[in-house]
């Protein structure tokens, strides 16, 4: 009995003090998981309409369209999103260093020029680090949010220990309506918690990974080893000082696809300086790897491949980041898995709210009744004279007078 009570106290201590913060992180994460779809719904200019069923045009066509729209701007990167969304050409100009040009990937028509923060970016930043600023290699907000995964994991373990024979919720679910908010909240908390075990395990395990990643970033422990920059002496020299030209983005993409035919480029980064590379990142069709797991680094001056990144050749530490994101975001199965993640996120959010309601009602009812409530019986399901009151469902922290 004492052990049971201790587990329950731990369950309360890891959940209740931060329930509102946890709930906020859950809700923002839920919205972030479908932020692309919300953008599609809210902004017609972000839709990649393709009524004629055209094949996707190459990145060079998107760049050409963006460059025609903003002739003075410089292309710094290209993003390929889901099939139903526009591709994004990133550009920099004198007045707008971060411009996003939305291009229909099938018709190569420019649909919007965006100079501000996108809804997708805002939601991910709000969820990921509560908009706390980044100090070089760490953010307090990122630590706070990822540390919640430890509390979530502890909450799951203690919750399952406290809720004896929790597996009954799978075959005989109990959800008593019409007997008050506390009974309903308690039943929902246990029922939804048990049915969400798989989701809580995934979210908290990937969250723990993000916490570990934050520590590694903060301590300059490299997660991946990008190739060293080009040696200065290997850069070409122009006898008359005329600026030299790099190979084009399309040439770089072609070289990457020759090397990795299965590569589906989702992020093309132009060199940031003359000793940098073209970075062509993409998925390789494997379900549980993210859209940046495969990469080809290309010398922009002679087109040689300097380095490649292939998930099948990675060590476990290198693989983890590419496995964690699809699992945490729910992107591995396209729209279907995103919707499942969104629903599960809502259920997880409701766990913190229902847990708080149970606690609040118990504490304040106890205060009102001046401790005249029955002591915890250890039963997991209501029995005897309190069968309908719900009082025996949860261990009571105080002593019976």
């Amino acid at each position, binding site marked *: 009995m004492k052990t049971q009570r201790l587990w329950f106290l731990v369950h309360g201590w890891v959940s209740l003090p931060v329930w*509102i913060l946890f709930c906020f992180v859950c809700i923002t994460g839920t919205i972030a998981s479908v932020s692309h779809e919300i953008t599609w719904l809210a902004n017609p200019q972000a839709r990649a309409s393709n009524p004629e069923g055209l094949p996707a045009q190459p990145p060079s066509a998107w760049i050409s369209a963006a460059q025609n729209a903003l002739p003075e701007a410089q292309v710094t990167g290209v993003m390929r999103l889901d099939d139903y969304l526009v591709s994004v050409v990133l550009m920099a100009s004198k007045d707008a260093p971060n411009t996003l040009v939305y291009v229909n990937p099938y018709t190569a028509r420019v649909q919007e020029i965006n100079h501000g923060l996108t809804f997708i970016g805002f939601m991910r930043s709000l969820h990921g680090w509560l908009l706390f600023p980044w100090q070089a290699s760490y953010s307090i907000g990122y630590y706070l949010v990822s540390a919640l995964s430890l509390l979530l994991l502890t909450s799951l373990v203690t919750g399952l220990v406290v809720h004896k024979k929790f597996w009954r919720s799978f075959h005989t679910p109990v959800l008593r309506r019409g007997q008050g908010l506390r009974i309903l909240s308690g039943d929902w908390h246990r029922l939804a918690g048990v049915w969400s075990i798989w989701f809580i395990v995934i979210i908290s395990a990937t969250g723990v990974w993000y916490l570990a990643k934050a520590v590694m970033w903060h301590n300059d422990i490299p997660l991946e080893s990008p190739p060293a920059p080009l040696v200065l002496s290997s850069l070409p020299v122009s006898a008359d000082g005329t600026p030299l030209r790099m190979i084009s983005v399309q040439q770089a993409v072609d070289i990457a696809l020759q090397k990795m035919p299965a590569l589906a480029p989702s992020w093309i980064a132009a060199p940031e300086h003359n*000793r940098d590379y073209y970075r062509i990142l993409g998925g390789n069709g494997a379900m549980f790897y993210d859209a940046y797991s495969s990469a080809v680094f290309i010398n922009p001056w002679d087109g040689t491949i300097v380095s490649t990144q292939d998930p099948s050749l990675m060590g476990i530490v290198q693989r983890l980041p590419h496995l964690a994101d699809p699992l945490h975001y729910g992107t591995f199965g396209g729209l279907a898995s995103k919707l499942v993640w969104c629903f599960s996120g809502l259920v997880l959010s409701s766990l913190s709210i229902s847990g708080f309601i149970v606690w609040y009602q118990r504490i304040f009812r106890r205060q009102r009744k001046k401790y005249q409530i029955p002591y915890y019986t250890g039963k997991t399901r209501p029995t005897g004279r309190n069968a309908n009151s719900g009082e025996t469902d949860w261990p009571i922290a105080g002593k019976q007078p």
Partner: protein
Amino acid sequence: MKDRAKTAGSSSTRLKRILYTASGLLLLAPVYFTWSGLNPTPIQPLAQQALGPFTATPTPMDELPPYPQGNGFRKDYSVVFCDDCTQHIRVAHLAIQPNAPTLPENEDGILHGSRYLQHVHATAPAQVVSEDRLWLTIQDWKGQVWQTSWPVSSAGD
């Protein structure tokens, strides 16, 4: 006995309430950071200087001292060059140190970004002293090297 239990229970509840309030107040932080992100404090750029055919104007990204990174310290700046000048630069580096540096072989303090706005994590000492200067070293496509420097305060601005 009853009183002791009552006291223990209420102090535990009080602590939970305090932690709860603190975590709730934490949610004001995103509001503040959104506001401060939309209303950034302008930072004064350093004086424009000429290096041969180029002109450059560095601006510190913040008013904080250098931060640790890797086996040294860094201070972030943005640099604006004269119109169309960036494409004539083969490589450029920024460093805070007392004497003029040679062109580094590694990428420490290398300028990067677009032709309109360059960004750099300049190499710096842990504490900037009065002898330190902000050194910009440029090599053009002919291989010719140009240098200039600015005085810097203890915060590197």
